[in-house]
């Protein structure tokens, strides 16, 4: 197990280095000039040049990259070229919003998706399965910005069930905090829930046909107990993998969802930075997302071996 972890960590470091190069070069391929954006439309060429000098944009790419990496290792992500604020402060302010939102969305998606998946398997060929399948189809095919707008129009504005926008830090006021995040989390989790539902249904159907399920029923266990202890547990292995693969989509979904519900999150920060060519912020944001991705994958792999004892590497010796 330790060997496995060390290997995985080493792979992660290599991935990070590659990612930093891609990010650094990618940002510089964006059309537009940060110095121009900073100086404003009516600045003189001299003023723009001075800003370029100040930001170090005139130096060679390699020097710029080494500086970038060196600063990053010291925890210094630089300053926003737009507002002058420390990038670390910006991230610290916005990241929790997104993390709460995503975590909440995952929980919603897993609960809804797995439940619907079980229902679909349990009532195969009858109306509950049709309903679950229809819901999954809607969840997959309707874009979540539109779903978000509909939700605001009807659930928030017309019936007043949820606030239409706004954010209350969960650490300050948990009840209000979760209440404000509920609608965004549902919208963000919709497509993930749909994918999870379909996977759960498919792998439950497969698992319930296996020999060990029949043997379990021959013990005299109720169908419900067999479903949970024999069917679900083995089906979850697939579901965990799917969640891991779908998290990338969740991050890009968060960008859109935060925009719709006016949440001051990471997604909004990213979007604003891209529109204003805020190099330091873009770099930091993309790298953090990469780190997040790597950590999530690591977590999924570890979780995988917890659920599935057969791939526990090395075992207890």
């Amino acid at each position, binding site marked *: 197990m330790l060997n496995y972890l060390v290997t995985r960590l080493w792979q992660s470091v290599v991935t990070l280095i590659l990612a930093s190069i891609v990010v650094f070069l990618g940002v510089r391929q964006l059309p537009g000039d940060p110095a121009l954006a900073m100086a404003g439309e009516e600045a003189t060429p001299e003023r723009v040049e001075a800003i370029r000098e100040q930001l170090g944009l005139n130096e060679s790419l390699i020097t710029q990259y080494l500086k970038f990496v060196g600063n990053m290792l010291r925890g210094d992500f630089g300053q926003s070229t737009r507002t002058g604020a420390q990038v670390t402060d910006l991230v610290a302010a916005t990241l929790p919003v997104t993390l709460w939102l995503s975590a909440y969305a995952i929980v919603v998606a897993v609960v809804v998706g797995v439940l619907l998946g079980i229902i679909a398997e349990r009532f195969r060929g009858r109306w509950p399965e049709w309903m679950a399948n229809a819901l999954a189809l809607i969840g997959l095919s309707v874009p979540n910005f539109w779903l978000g707008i509909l939700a605001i129009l009807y659930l928030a504005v017309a019936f007043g069930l949820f606030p239409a926008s706004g954010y209350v830090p969960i650490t300050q006021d948990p009840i209000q905090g979760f209440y404000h995040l509920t609608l965004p989390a549902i919208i963000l989790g919709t497509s993930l829930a749909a994918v999870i539902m379909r996977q759960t249904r498919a792998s439950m159907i497969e698992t319930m*046909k296996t020999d060990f399920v*029949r*043997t379990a029923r021959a*013990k005299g*266990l*109720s169908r419900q*107990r067999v479903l949970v202890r024999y069917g679900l547990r083995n089906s979850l292995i697939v579901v965990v993998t799917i969640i891991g693969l779908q998290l990338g989509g969740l991050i890009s979904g968060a960008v859109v969802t935060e925009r719709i519900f006016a949440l001051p999150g990471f997604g909004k920060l990213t979007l604003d930075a891209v529109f204003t060519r805020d190099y330091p912020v873009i770099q930091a944001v993309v790298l953090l997302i990469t780190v997040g991705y790597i950590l999530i994958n690591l977590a999924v792999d570890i979780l995988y071996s917890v659920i599935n*004892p*057969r791939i526990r590497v090395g075992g207890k010796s």
Partner: protein
Amino acid sequence: MTLPTADAPAPLLSVRGLEVTFGDNAEPVLHDVSFDIRPGERVAIVGQSGSGKSTIIGSILRLLPGDGHITGGSILLGNDDLATASEQHMRSVRGRRIGLVPQDPASNLNPSMRVGAQIADALAASGHRNGADVEKRVVELMTEAGIPEAKRRAKQYPHEFSGGMRQRVLIAIALSRQPELLIADEPTSALDVTVQRQILNHLQTLVDAHGTSLLFITHDLGVAADRTDRIIVMSEGRIVEVGTPAEILLNPQEDYTKRLVAAAPTAVAAVRVAAGSSTVKTGPILEVSHLVKEFKIRGQRGSILRAVDDVSFSVERGTTTAIVGESGSGKTTVARIILGLESATSGTALVDGEGITASRGQQRRALRRRVQPVFQDPYGSLDPTYSIEKLIDEPLRIFKVGDRRSRQDRVAELLDQVALPRTVAQRRPNELSGGQRQRVAIARALALEPELLICDEAVSALDVLVQEQILTLLADLQSNLGLSYLFITHDLAVVRQIAHNVVVMKSGEVMEEGATDAVFRSPSSGYTRELLSAIPGASLVS
């Protein structure tokens, strides 16, 4: 229900006119099946795959797969008719009154649940909830089923158990609530003969001790004869014949039973060795000397497994040599080295004086033409997307033999040789039966006119009647074409039928080798004697 008569005790289970259908308006797969099992009686149902024996179990437990359902008849357990009982009622029958030991120990345990918990689940179904009590009972049951260190092993997962040990776990589950009837569905067909014997002996002791009735499902007449009081022979969803083991084996009445008995691969079955085939060259075609193969064990630095340990033997031209052994004996590794699919750590395997592992390029290609394999699983070894013609002529295309036209002719000729109609050429493997597929595999192996065929468990996956046909085919091909065979098998009865010489392997080493007759008549090693006495059915017939 049927009333008990004065001379026989009331049957525990009474099946009358059972008819089962899959899907709507389809032909029934079981027709008018009737039989009784009396308390303490042991009854075997014998039949080949597709005969409907597993469907009977599915009906009794009301766990038929898919859309199978009972369309007629009754299944009386005491006064309950299980054929029409509610699901709620069935739950009080399953496990408590009827226990099931399923067929395949590899797939019948939940892979993500500790073994102890799976046994505890069976107890939980009867309302045992007290944690400490359940744990104690689990350890008791495992010990009773013959699992050493039960306390520790209860906390392990199924993949940490060997096949035999898993089957013991399944037996513990089936007996956990002391059912009146135990159904054993081919409980040992996936296991080695010696393990099979241990498990069956143990099962029998337990069943006898508790006075449990036994319904034993098997394809093996020998096992049925050894272990039960009465045999029911089934074919195509109907009961063909019922009788005591002696009646069925020694005096079968029905044609089908007679064929089954004749084909039964017991140690006494007809010897089918091809008599002295006329070959021009003499001397060994294959010489294996001091072959060693070591594998590094993953995760344990420095540990080495000697899968093949100083193995030497030879195959004479035009004869059959069998390597016999249980799983893990290294017999398949030997075959893989000879085929050049694996390299030897040391030692040599020479085909007509040339070593395939030492050869390179052209020479190696030429050697490959002369040695061809036939594998065990006719379902896995044929590409399902290829037509039969494409499968058989693939080796010809690889070696660029002839043109399109002549290859077509050759395929037709090969189909004739393996007694398949030429019309199958355009079909795909999934349209053929297991036996037909194995004929295709043999035809493919023969395409390049090899001198040596390596048959790795080539008939193990087939039903006895089909197995007999394939063995006959192999013997015919040997006398017509002067082929030599290296036959890898775990089945001593098959060895007796086809091999001139036999090599007995265990844990990578050769235990004994010699002429088949001599080895069978007076085995010199204890292990061979153990293997021979483990062959089911031998005791009864001889």
